[in-house]
Structure formats: C-alpha cells, structure tokens
C-alpha cells in the first residue's frame, strides 16, 4: 500500500532563506499526523510544495504514490488542503463557492455530498449567504468544506483553528476525527499543542526546514517529558541536603523535581517528612507536548 504522503529530501530556498533543508517524511494511510514547529520552520512551505503551490528546488513529493509534479492531476485530486489564510471569493455564496470548487475537480452531481458537508460544518443555514457577509469563523468552515468537496483521501489542515472560537474548534475536531475514522489521512499543523497532543497519533517537529523529531505522540511525551513534582515549603524551611541534587528547577520559592515515574513521589515526600519539612503547596504535573516542544526546539539538533 502506498503511503498517503511520501516526502524525500525536499529542499526549497526563497532568496537567502532556506525554507526547507532536506525534509524526509512518510505518512501512512489512515494516520492522524501532526506537523509542528515555530513560525518560519517550513510547515506551510512543505504543505505548499505538496499541494503544488510551491515548487521544490530538489527532492520528491508524492500523494498516495502519485508524484506532485509528474502526475499532478492525480496527486491533486487525492489531496484536500485547508489553507492557513482566511481567503474567500466575494462574488459568490457559500453554495456557489462549493459547487465551483467541486467543478474544478471535475466532480459532477455533487449536491448530496455538498449538503452533507454543509450540515456537518453547521453551514446549512448560511448556504445561500454571500461569502462577504460571513463571520471569520464561518469563513473558516467554508474553507474546510471547500477542501473536502472532492472527497480527498488525504486532508491537510494548515492551522485551521487559528482565531477560531472554542465551540467551532470542538465541532471541527469532532468532524475531522470522524473523517479520520472513516479512513481519511489527516495532516494537521497547529500552534495549539494540546490539540495536537489529543488528536495526533504521530508527530513531526520542524525547525529551520528540518525534521528534528519524529515519533508517535506517546513516545515523544515519554522521551522528552515526564511527571513533575512542584512544591513549596513552609517559610523558613530549607530542603534536606539529600534531596538537593534532585531539584530540576526553582522559581520564586517553588521547587520542581523531574520524575521518571509517579512512584518517585513517595520517596521524596518520605525524605521531607524525615527532615521535618512542612509543605505549603504541592502539585504533580503530567507530561505535556508543550514541554516536549520546548525541549526539542532548544536542543542543538
């Protein structure tokens, strides 16, 4: 089975900026994949190269086994892209926009599917409204609808929830999850790391045009993040000498201990009790993707 997306040694330079510096990536069919990285890391350039909006200087990109340059017609038919910018054509209504987009892909008699997308994205009531009169969130939904109009097996969402309210965000994720369960491959870029953490099975992190981390979300969390114990001692008390080497950080009197597992908590508390330390405040932090992200981005890879 062809991978949904195969990216081999792709480079792209804009003037003096090396946007992509040799990216290799393979995404299997049916994955929910996250593409993360700070602004300017090359996420959008990579997506644009995949969609044929940008031409890679070297390397190969393929969608479901179809090269995006040599076999662009097949590749584009299999790919749906939700662009980052909130763009729309002010001349048309929502339904017209979708019908036209459908026609561009050569899909005839698409009314039933268009109705279904409108329903799922809560746009039915706005179907005959001109694009200009929609709110930002509504326009974003139409962009999602436009990307789905030709039923692409691979769907790329480039920061689909930037500036979108909570309700829509949740509705959107429900819908995208359903698409994923139905067999669509989903590739997502986002700055909301908690979203990526809860949605994506696998994640690639990009930095300066390179993939600097690539693993399942669970493995990344295990490797780069762990449980943290934060506590504040009662005023005037100091930490027993035996525990000092275990302190990972201290900020405003709050001590942080990095834990391999939750079992270590008991040992620390035991030592504190033994030394007669009273605890004012205590908190156990779970591993999170934000920490992974910060560590990966700060490491010299």
């Amino acid at each position, binding site marked *: 089975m062809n991978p949904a997306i195969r990216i081999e040694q792709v480079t792209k330079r804009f003037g003096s900026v090396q946007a992509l510096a040799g990216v290799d990536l393979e995404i299997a069919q049916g994955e929910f994949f996250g593409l993360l990285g700070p602004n300017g890391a090359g996420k959008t350039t990579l997506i644009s190269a995949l969609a044929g909006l940008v031409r890679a200087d070297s390397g190969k990109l393929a969608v479901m086994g179809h090269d995006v340059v040599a076999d662009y*017609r097949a590749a584009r038919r299999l790919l749906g892209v939700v662009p980052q910018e909130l763009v729309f054509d002010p*001349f048309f209504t929502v339904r017209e926009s979708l019908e036209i987009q459908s026609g561009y892909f050569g899909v005839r008699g698409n009314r039933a599917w268009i109705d279904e997308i409108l329903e799922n994205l809560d746009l039915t009531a706005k179907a005959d409204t001109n694009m200009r009169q929609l709110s930002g969130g509504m326009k974003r939904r139409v962009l999602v609808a436009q990307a789905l109009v030709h039923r692409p097996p691979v769907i790329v969402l480039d920061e689909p929830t930037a500036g979108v309210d909570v309700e829509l965000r949740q509705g959107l994720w429900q819908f995208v999850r359903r698409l994923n369960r139905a067999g669509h491959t989903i590739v997502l870029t986002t700055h909301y790391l908690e979203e990526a953490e809860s949605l994506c099975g696998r994640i690639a992190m990009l930095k300066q045009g390179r993939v600097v981390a690539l693993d399942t979300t669970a493995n990344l969390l295990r490797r780069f993040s762990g449980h943290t114990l934060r506590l504040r001692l009662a005023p005037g008390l100091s930490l027993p000498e035996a525990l000092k080497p275990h302190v990972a950080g201290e900020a405003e009197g709050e001590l942080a201990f990095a834990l391999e597992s939750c079992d270590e908590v008991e040992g620390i508390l035991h030592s504190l009790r033994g030394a007669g330390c009273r605890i004012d405040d205590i908190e156990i932090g779970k591993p999170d993707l934000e920490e992974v992200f910060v560590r990966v981005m700060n490491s010299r890879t």
Partner: protein
Amino acid sequence: MDGFLTLLYKEVLRFWKVSFQTVAAPVLTALLYLLIFSHVLEKHVKVYDTISYTAFLIPGLVMMSVLQNAFANSSSSLIQSKVTGNIIFMLLPPISYRQFFAAYVLAAVARGVVVGLGVLLVTLWFVDLPWRAPLWIVAFALLGSAILGALGMIAGIWAEKFDQLAVFQNFIIVPLTFLSGVFYSIHSLPIFWQQVSHFNPIFYMIDGFRYGFFGVSDVPPLLSLGIVGACFIVLTLFTLRLLKSGYKLRA
C-alpha cells in the same frame, strides 16, 4: 463539469453578477463618446469621402469597448484573486495551465463581445451601417478580444498591486486604443504619424473590424488579419510559457 468549463463558467459569472458595472457602464461611456464627437465633428469630417463621421465612429467605438473590456476582465479578475488570496482555489485543483489560459481568455472574449454588442445596440439607431462583410467583423472581434484577454492575463499575473495594473492600463492599453484610429482614419494624419500608427497592433484590429462594416479600410484587411493573427499566436505562446513556469503564481 470539468475544471476548464467550471473556471470559464466562474469567470463569466463573475462579471455577469456585476454587469451594471462591467457591461452597462462601458456601454454608457461609448454612447457618451458617440454623442459628443458626432455632435462636434459630424458636419466637419467625412471619411473615405462617402462615410459620415458618426457611421465611421461607431465600429471604432464598438471595437474599442470590446478590447478594453476584454483586457479589464482577465486582468482585474487575476489581480483580485491574487490580492485577496483566493487564487489558491484555482491553483489547488488539477487544472492544467493550458486550461487555465483558455478559460480566462474565453471569459475575456465573452465580456468583450457582450459589451461590444451592447454598444452596437444602443448606437444602431443613430445611423444605418452597411454590414458589408460580417465574417470579418466576427473574426476581428474574436481575435482582438482574445489578444487583449491574453494581455490582461500577463498584466494581472505581473502586477502585485492594483496601482501597478492601473499603470499598465493607463499608460499602455488606453493610449494604444485611443491612438489606433478609433476616432479618425490614419490617412488624415501627417505621414510620420501614419507610419508610427502602423506599429500599433490595435490599429489593425480597428481597421479590419471597420472593413467588415464598410468594405473600405486604411490597409488591406487580409494584412490586418495576418498581423492580428500573428500577435495572437505570439501572445498566446508567451502567456502559456509564463503560466507553465508558474511565474508569480506558483513560487
């Protein structure tokens, strides 16, 4: 519907939805030209000895409107799509660059012809036109609007802002059309300016178009057709190359 037909449909729908501005307005402008110039010049100017000035002027105005609106259609559509970013909707689907070209040019031809017919319709009752060779009329209208449609594409692809497009329009297209013999026969010009006019491709479009109405022209119509045809081929090849390279559309 395949991608090409949809893009053509969308481009036609785009100007048709705002036809008050894209069709009615240029028709009114042409009508005003006709009223003013024929009022001032009808009694003073006779062209080719036999043709009244008003009759002479009408085909010129029709063709000028055809050409300017064909250019306006493709150029403004492209620049709007680029500036607003919705050009992405046309770049993501599997539409080939040839289909892209054909759709924009044909929509420009459609707008040019619709406006031309409008101008003809409102000016018809001023004077009886002889309609000597209708096929020439059709041939020059189609070729001329296709050429300006292609030029509009080039301008729309090249321009990054509306004012750059306005420069193209105001400093190239408008002077070339105004100085092409819409309002006069170039035989009325001094020899030097007659010769200069022969370097203006739009002159041949107007002259050949007018031949279709009166059976007389400044240069033989076949020569005009040859030159206009050659211009069309050159511009088509150039625009196709531009599109194939992805110039300013696909980075």
